[in-house]
Structure formats: C-alpha cells, structure tokens
C-alpha cells in the first residue's frame, strides 16, 4: 500500500507546477500508469481523493491512461505483449520476458485554471 506515498508525490508535482506556471485550480490530472507498474488503481484513486481535499486539486478529475506492457523474448528476439510480470512469450511459450515498457508511472498533463 505505497499508493499513498505515490499520491503524495503526485500532489508535490502538482504544487511545484502551480508555483512555476501560476495556476490556482486543477480540474483534471492525467496520469500514465503502466499495466506492469506496481500500483493498484482503485487504491491510488482512494488516496488521491483524500490528499486533494482542501488543496488546489480538490475535486479534480483523475484520468488514468493505462500503458500496455511490452516485453522482449530472448529466444525469439522479438517484442511481445505482456499483461503480467510472469507472462510467457506467446510465440515460444518461454518465461523470462524482459520488460521494455509498461512499468511507468508518470504525471502527464494537468488541466488547470
């Protein structure tokens, strides 16, 4: 349950942006969360709601853009889609895929006024 720490980081990023870019209210927050990232979206939303109370992001809409997982199969020397960290390569059926993308956690953009 590190989602609270992650939500705090998001709030800090928002507040730093507010000082730099001069806005008073955040209406929407777009996050990119990879399918393979160690984040439970429901838990994250819960923490975000609590942390944004009485802040510039109060009642902000949280839009989560899910990034698909992509791995590399050494046996096939090709990229393969991944949905979990213990997926097999759909071509050769082997384990041990190396994650190429889909483990990201990013604040992408904010809609502010």
């Amino acid at each position: 349950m590190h989602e609270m720490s992650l939500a705090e980081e998001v709030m800090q990023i928002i507040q730093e942006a507010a000082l730099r870019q001069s806005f008073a209210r955040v209406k929407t927050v777009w996050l990119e969360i990879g399918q393979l990232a160690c984040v439970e979206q429901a838990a994250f939303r819960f923490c975000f709601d609590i942390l944004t109370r009485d802040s510039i992001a109060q009642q902000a809409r949280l839009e989560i853009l899910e990034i698909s997982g992509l791995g590399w199969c050494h046996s096939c020397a090709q990229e393969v889609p991944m949905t979990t960290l213990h997926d097999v390569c759909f071509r050769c059926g082997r384990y041990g895929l190396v994650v190429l993308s889909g483990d990201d956690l990013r604040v992408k953009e904010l809609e502010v006024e």
Partner: protein
Amino acid sequence: MCTTCGCRSGVMRIGGKRRQPRHKLEGTTPYRATANQTADARSTASANHPIHSHDLIDFGSGVAETHVPGMRQSRIVKIERDILAKNNHYADANRRYLTEHGIFALNLVSSPGSGKTTLLVQTIAALPAVQPIYVIEGDQQTENDALRIRATGARALQINTGKGCHLDADMVGRALQQLNPQESSLLFIENVGNLVCPASFDLGEAHKVVVLSITEGEDKPLKYPDMFRAADLMILNKCDLMPYLAYDLELAIDYAHRINPTLQVIQLSAVTGEGMPAWLAWIEAGHRRMQAAKSKLKDWPPHGE
C-alpha cells in the same frame, strides 16, 4: 490517511530522534497572474471537450480562441514527470556518495519473519573484520533490530518509519549523514518487512537482496513479482527446516526465474551456517567491484567537479 498502512501520517524517527519530512505539503497555492497568461490560455480544454492525450490537443477549438477579458480560462499544462522522480533523485545522490567512498550497500527486502535480522547478525559475525560494517534498520516501530545488530559490535542506526510501509531514499540519505560510514565499508540496509512497497523505492544501493524463507511457500515470487524482479539475488533461508517441510525448492527457484531470469540464488540457513560461505563470497566479490568503481571514479571525475 491510508487505512491499510497509513503511509502518510507516521512519525519518522532516525536513531530515536523525531524527524520532519523534508518537503512539507502545502495546503493551497495562491493564484498569481502573469504576463503570458493569455498566451498560455491558448491551449485549452473544458469539461465538454476533454483532452485525453497530448496528441489530441487542438489549439484552434478551445474557448481561448474567442478570448473574453476577465473570463476564466482553463488550459493544459504539460508535466511529463515520473512520479518516483524525486525518490530516484535522492537515490542517485546516495549511489554517488556510496560509490565515491567505496561503500558497498545492500538493501535486504522480504516479508516479515523471513529471518533478515538473524541473517545479518550471523553475516556480521562470519565476515572477516577487514572492513567496518554498518547497518541501517527499517521498522515501523521499536529499536529491537538495531539492538540485536549492535550486540555484534557493528554500528547500527534504526529508522522508525512510523506508519510508513517502506524506506525511501531520502530517509537513507539522512541516515547516511548521521552514520557517516568509513571509506570502503560495508552497509546493510534492512528494509521494512514488506514484500510489496519497498520494490518501487530505489535507495541507492548496489543490489536489492530478497530473502525468502522456505516456510513461506514456493509461489511467493509469482504472488509478489515486483520484488523478485527488482532484486539481483534471492536468498532461500531456513534451509535447515527442509526435512520437516514439503517444500519444492526447484519450483520456488523456477518461479523466481520466470519473473527475473538473471536472479542469482543462494540457499542457506542463517542458524546452522549451511550455505553461508557462498553468501559471504558474494558480498566480498561485490565489495571488490565497488572498490574498482571507486578508483575509476577518482581517476576520471565525470561531473567535472
């Protein structure tokens, strides 16, 4: 506050002293109008016209195109920042400090009760007294683990995370300042017993070492894959209990390799000492590599300082 582990509101203690978070969250940010506000307002979105990704921003269709003075405009601010960027920044600083001083640091992670502290106590006793050993202990409460380590003669600092469920790089950075470890020493960081959260937080260590005791079930790597992916070495502990358990060692290793094919594995029993020489040799090899990295850094300062 998080109802499961309440990460946010705990009182952090380092060496028994109460510490405030380095960055306090502020309640509100005052609005400050700027000269380029109108220009900024050109990229807009509204509740009726949401923008879902950067390549969908239409600069021509927003309300700002027909700007009315005094009317509040919403706009899109690009952030593109990794949520863990701040932690990673502190972790990089720790890693640089550790490398410059040739300090070989390991981050021991596991579920509670896997035997991390016992392993550390036995490791400190078994390592030749060539280099000084320091230990940073992470627990939510009590100084019990640090006391157990100090009994071995090694210097230990306890971090109480309060209600936090993991150590972060800032905590470790501050603990390093307080410990002030000697050149070319060994540093063990015993993370909070938790097989989930510490996986995401780089502390600046050379390696994460995941300890899995054979009383825990073979499928732990599949149940908690992030930790086994983040680690470089898995220690299968409590192997002396093998005769009393129906544990499939090969299966546990196979599961771990499904997640992380390059994960090294050492089987041992911290209590009987069986398998300890391989672990000690692994530490010494890592320590030697760190000394090589230190001298390389000295020969060629990459940051021009």
